[in-house]
Each structure stands twice: as C-alpha cells, then as structure tokens.
C-alpha cells in the first residue's frame, strides 16, 4: 500500500528540495500555524482552564507574558484569517423564527405602524430572492443575538424610510415571530412538522428619529445649491473620521 507521502498527487514526487534554512523556517511556521488554529478552535472552557492553571502555578510576571503572547498570537491569526471557528449545521434551532421589522410613524396619539418593504418580509420575485437576497438569511442570523447589530440596521432603515403618509419616523421595532418544530417522532406520528400556533413578541424598539430627520434634511438639501450639498458630504466624512 502506498504511503500518504507517495500517493497524493501522483507517483513518486520530484526530490529537488528547497535549501535547508527554508525547510526549517517553513516547518516552524507550519507547527505555529496549526497550533494557533487548534488553540483558536478549542472550547472556551478549555481556554479558561488554561488561564486559571497559569494564574495559579506561574509567577505573576511570567503569567502576564504568557497571556500577552497568547493575545499577540490570536491577533496575528485574526489578521491572517486563520482564527475561524468552523461550524456546519452544529447546534440546530428547534424553532423557526423570523424578524418582522416595523417603522412607527407619527406621535403616540396618531401612530401608524408600517411593515417595511424589506427582504424576507415582502413580496419579491424568485430572481430577486435567489440572487439579490442571497445574503439576507446570514445577515439576520448574525444580528439575531447582537443588539448593537440590530440597532445599526435600525438606523440604516431610518435613513431609508424616514417618513410615511406625511408622518416622520419615530421608532424601528423588531418583532419576532416564532413557530416551534415538533420533535422527530411526534412529527412522524402526526405527519406534520410544526406546531399550529405562532408566537409573536417585540424584541427591540429603537428610537431613530434623529437619523430619520437627518435623512429628510439631506433629501431637502439635494435640491439646494451644490455647495450646501458638498458641506453636508464633508460633514458626514468628518463625523466618520472623528469616530
């Protein structure tokens, strides 16, 4: 039986090797890279156990240096893009969920709620759903547990939909609609996959009137002289640079 070194990529490979110093450097790099990848992919409990062992058994200065070196190694891995944690259908959800994102327009006594015309909650053609919206599911999954991410998106929506029926936008509301999936054996016996009822609750309500007003002002200035518009653009750039 051929060995892995001989079998992969065909018959006996060519034996012209690089210089010795290059082989040693690449070998060390190989071991460092794989050690870093394995370290980054250990469970958090393993990392905590290591940190606690170091704190207990090493002198304070050495412990500090170890933690610092570990941080540098992780950052180098982050720069190189080798700190990915791979999950392919790992922990799967036991319920189906979807965001329903509403804009709340007008004051409290004359409030109008509008289901915003967004991907995954409005009528879209097949082509649009398969081509234009191909990132939406992952985006929603990534902001599912990230309140700041949801607020980021809410502020963007405020700039896109600042008014409705003459009323200014006040809040962006994230409602969650959930339907539980029946366990496998129950599903087989009942020959259906889902519970009959949906649950809906409000996950977040973000006050975004400032972003909406800014968007309305920018739209009004679009019809103003070009110099005024340039001022607005440079002010936006300055805001970003200041941040």
């Amino acid at each position, binding site marked *: 039986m051929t060995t892995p070194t001989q079998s992969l990529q065909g018959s006996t490979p060519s034996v012209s090797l690089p210089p010795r110093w290059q082989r040693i450097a690449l070998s060390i790099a190989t071991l460092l890279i794989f050690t870093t990848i394995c370290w980054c992919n250990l469970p958090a409990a393993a990392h905590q156990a290591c940190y606690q062992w170091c704190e207990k058994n090493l002198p304070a200065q050495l412990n500090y240096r170890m933690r610092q070196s570990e941080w540098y190694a992780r950052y180098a891995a982050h720069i190189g893009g*080798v700190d990915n944690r791979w999950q392919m259908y790992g922990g799967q959800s036991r319920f189906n969920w979807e965001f329903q994102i509403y804009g709340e327009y007008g004051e409290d006594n004359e409030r109008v709620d509008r289901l915003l015309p967004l991907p995954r909650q409005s009528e879209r053609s097949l082509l649009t759903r398969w*081509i234009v919206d191909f990132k939406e599911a992952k985006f929603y999954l990534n902001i599912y547990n990230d309140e700041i991410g949801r607020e980021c998106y809410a502020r963007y929506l405020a700039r896109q939909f600042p008014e409705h029926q003459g009323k200014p936008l006040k809040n962006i509301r994230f409602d969650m609609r959930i339907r539980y999936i029946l366990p496998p*054996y129950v599903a087989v016996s009942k020959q259906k996959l889902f519970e009959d009822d949906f649950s809906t609750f409000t996950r977040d309500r973000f006050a975004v009137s400032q972003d909406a007003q800014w968007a309305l002002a920018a739209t009004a200035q679009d019809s103003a002289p070009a110099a005024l518009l340039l001022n607005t653009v440079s002010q936006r750039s300055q805001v970003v640079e200041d941040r």
Partner: protein
Amino acid sequence: MFDRLIQSWNTFWFSRLDARPLAMFRIAIGGLFSIWFLFILPNWQRFFAGDGIVSLVSADFPNNRVNGPLSLFHWTEGWLPIEIFWPIAFAFCLAFTFGFYTRISTLGLLLMINAMVHRNPYIVHGEELVIRMCLLYCLFMDLGSVWSIDAWRRKQHGKSERNTILAWPIRMMQINICLIYLISLPFKFYDDAGWVTGDAFHWTVASEMWGLGGMYWITLWGGGILRKCFTFYTVLIETLFPTLVWFKPCRRFVLAGIAALHIGIGLLVPNVSFFTFSMVCTFTAFLAREDVDLMLAVVGRVRRSLLSLYMVTKATNASL
C-alpha cells in the same frame, strides 16, 4: 528511524507537485467568486457604504464590530467612494480566474475579501472565510504556472514551462480543509444530540432558513428512515474524508462522496449555496496527477464523440 521521519517530512512538505490540480482550483473558485461578485453588486452600497447597514454616519452610535482597521475601506473612508471598489474587486477576481498576473491578482483579491469581511462582519458567510484562508496560502505558490494567460505569455516569450509547484502551500491548504471537518464534527456531536441519534436532518429539513424548501417527506416518510440515512451518511463521510483522502485507493471515493454531499446541499438548500460550492472547489486541491489525466482523457473522449456525432448529422442533412 529519525532520519526516515525527516525524509518523509521533507518529501511530504517540500517536494514538487503537479500544478494542474491547483490551476483547476484557481479556475473553479475564481469562476464561483466572479458569479458571487455579480450577485453582491445590487447590495454593494447597502452592505459596505458608510451610510449603509453599518451606519457609520450615526455619530452618537459607536459600533466597534464594524469598519475594523484591517479593512481597506476603513482607510479610504471619506475620500474614495465605496462604489469604486466593486469594479476593482471584480477585475482582480477575473484576472485571478484567467491567471493574468496571478500573484498580484491573488493578493488584490485577498485584500478585497479582507476589506469586505472587516468592514461588515454581519454579512460574512462561510464562502468568504474559505476563500480568504485559501488565498493566504495561494500567495506562496504560482497558481498561474499552467492553464493561464501567464503561462501562455511565458510560452510566447520562449521561457521554460513551470509544471510543478512546491508542496508546502498546497499541503497547508489541504490540511486546513481537512481541519474544517475535524473541528466541526466534534462540535456537531457536542452541540446537537441529533447527530448522534440520527435525527439531525429532521431539524435541517424543518428549518425555513436553512432547510430543504418544503421537502418534508424526507423526515416524515418511512418512520424517519431516510432522515437517519442522510444524517449518518453526513457523519460518516465527514469522519472518513480527513483521513482516507490521503490514501490513493480511497481518495477518489471519499472525494466523490463528500463532493456529492456538498453539491446536494448546494442545489437543495437555500442560502448556503456559495459556501458549499466553494468547498467543492477546494476539493480539486486534493486531485493527483493521474486524476487530472483521467479527467482530461474523459473530456477528450466526450469531445471526440460529440464531434463525430456532429459530423454524421451534418453529412446526413447534406445527403437529404
């Protein structure tokens, strides 16, 4: 014993290997990402502009997760419009696919993908992470040595052909791909008991986000026998692939098995197509010289058959 170990290590990591499988990898993943860039064009501004979903223009709202300093877009914010980067990225992708100034286009494509990932991590999916990992190692090899515009230009200038590549970056890519399965499989068992009992496919089928689009019969039919078969097949092939792919008698079977799994997922499951097809593209890096020879022989045979069929049809039409 130690000398034999060193010799095996040197042969595995530092010999020279056939360049054609990596050229196939370059063409496959470059072609896939060319389509990916076309798909992302309608949302380019929305995803990456300062007033897009990253909301950089909201002055009172700092979000440290977006617009990281590792992104090229961070440093050009305010003086280069974001729209200018799409044609640049697409041009790098096409150049990479066709092997035109391959190393430069590899670096350019890597910088663009990195810029996108660090600008807006909320939309990052597996395909960006896979290609970013592969492109890092591709910087250390001449992907344009064969089947490329660079190879054609070298030939035109009378320079010698480069048919082999140093093994090191190829091995790094191969092992990283195997590590994806070696790492994700234990986490599968730990995070979801369904992968142990054979019921994991039930939750996949039922998922409206990542599921099979209404093909509920897969889990409901026959007392769930199909769902157990699919679940255990997935576990089996993901367990066997990282080890058996290194042995010649098993290599083609495990490659075919895991490619079939990913192609099936890519065609049936919405929202993960690009990731699964990018994994299929990376499997070309495991092909051996004889696999490529066989594929070229089959392609040649099919081409000759089609040509002779065409000639016969043409002759028949002429006689009529």
